[in-house]
């Protein structure tokens, strides 16, 4: 058996679809954030695999993944700050209950 590119792309696709499913069905905001991380991670795998298989002499895909990880860390920190703030004012982090800013 030869491990070709497809054998890495299909698991990452499944991971991404799991993220989409969780993003739609979950109600807890932190669970939604977890699904988001899954999707980001699937994209990171794709970057690295394309880099490795199609352009083995360059490192661009690796750097993109590096920056994507940094941005994901920043985004998660900020999102959790917002979620804790919502929890402080609403006593719940259910997305259906966060309706204060709706009009």
């Amino acid at each position, binding site marked *: 058996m030869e491990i070709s590119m*497809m054998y890495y792309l299909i698991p990452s696709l499944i991971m991404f679809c799991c993220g989409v499913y969780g993003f739609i069905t*979950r109600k807890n905001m932190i669970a939604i954030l977890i699904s988001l991380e899954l999707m980001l991670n699937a994209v990171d795998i794709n970057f690295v695999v394309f880099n490795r298989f199609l352009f083995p002499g360059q490192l661009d895909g690796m750097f993109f993944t590096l920056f994507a990880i940094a941005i994901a860390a920043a985004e998660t920190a900020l999102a959790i*700050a917002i979620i804790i703030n919502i929890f402080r004012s609403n006593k719940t982090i259910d997305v259906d209950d966060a309706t204060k800013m709706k009009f």
Partner: protein
Amino acid sequence: MESVGSIIMYMVVVAAIIIFSVLAVTSRKILRSATYLLFTLFATAAIYFQLGYEFLGAVQIAVYAGGIVVLFVFSILLTSKPGDKSEKLTSKKKVVGLIASVAMLLVAGYALLSRCGFFAQLPAMEGVTMDRIGTELLSSSHGGMLLPFEAISVLLLACIIGGIVVARKR
């Protein structure tokens, strides 16, 4: 032709990715789902190691598994009791989610499988040394990554300030 050991390693890693990412979005206990996310991230790091990007795998473990998941666990413990279960999904929401994800899986999977170019073999690559990573990351010549590097540092600073401003007590 790859060695038997690397094929077994590959299968373990891929099985871990698929099983744990499904469990992470279906588990009803939020703390467990964060733990499954941790295992998925570790399996991803194993893929990076397997493809020869050791530095990236180390960053994945340090930043994702060491930083982000700990942040998740802290915020879960701050916002919910450890034994809490999320309520059962309504069937309507479940159906909508399943339709969206399965439709996406089918369309993207078909698009992937119809390209036979993606069955290419693993090309040879000389080891990615730290020297080369550092030089390319901080060079301002063609293909260098100095500008995004600086932009990321400004973004992280903005994120630190934003986190303090948003989360502090009024």
